[in-house]
């Protein structure tokens, strides 16, 4: 179990460090970084290159947003195998719906519970 955690730490840290390097070099905003890594993960998975990372490093590869892109593509490909073209349309969102729905639900609850904070500098 400790080895798994160490692996996750190493790989997760590495992906985040890559993101930080991109930010340092280009001063891109957070949203663009998120979309960039999402597409990176999705394209890698299109050639079946990302799932091996998830298998070896566990959460280290699946927790970063590139893992989100990977599961989107996996969902769409599974959908194709199961239902053909219709599966390609619904598969991606179906696989990632739990994460998005959790963010919406808990975001809504938090937005009702908490008042916006004034940013202190």
């Amino acid at each position, binding site marked *: 179990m400790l080895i798994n955690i160490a692996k996750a730490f190493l790989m997760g840290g590495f992906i*985040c460090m890559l*993101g930080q390097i991109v930010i340092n070099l280009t001063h891109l905003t957070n*949203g663009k970084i998120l979309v960039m890594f*999402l597409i990176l993960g*999705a394209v890698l998975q299109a050639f079946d290159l990302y799932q091996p990372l998830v298998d070896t490093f566990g*959460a*280290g590869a699946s927790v970063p947003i590139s893992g*989100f*892109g990977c599961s989107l593509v996996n969902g769409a490909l599974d959908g194709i195998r199961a239902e053909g073209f219709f599966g390609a349309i619904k598969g991606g969102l179906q696989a990632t719906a739990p994460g998005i729905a959790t963010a919406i639900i808990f975001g809504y609850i938090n937005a009702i519970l908490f008042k916006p904070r004034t940013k202190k500098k």
Partner: protein
Amino acid sequence: MSQNFEQKDTKLIEEQSKIRSFKNQKKKTLYMDYVFEVSPKSSHVKNMFWAYVIGGLICAFGQVIIDLLVQNGVEDKVASVFASCILVALAACATGLGVYDKLGRFAGAGSTVPITGFSNAMVAPAIEFRSEGMIYGLGAKMFTVAGPVVVNGVMISFVIAVFHLVLGV
């Protein structure tokens, strides 16, 4: 004669506009230099170190959740989805409490790239714009950053899937 004059005129105007655009460009580059100078400089190595540590810790925490779930008899694939849901929920609460912003200030990409950063990007504007109403404030602003992620993600997964279907892989 008059034609000649006009030609001269147009030439003059062209030159003037050229000079103007050159000056504007110079101003622009000067401005960019100024922005670069004024924006706070933190050492790249230090940024990368903190991004590595915080990002790694978030992923390690996700792995702890997965391992605990698997030990309690949850299937591997379900456990990984469930773990990211728990991380998203925790990050949403941390954003509400204002903890996540503080973390993000020195973690940089370490707090953006993990799925918790996605959650933070959804919840932070939702809290901030609630005062503009529940529908056009909270409901719409929630997707200012998450919207592009979902839209691009769905599009690229669809395109890749269609490619696979056409190529028959």
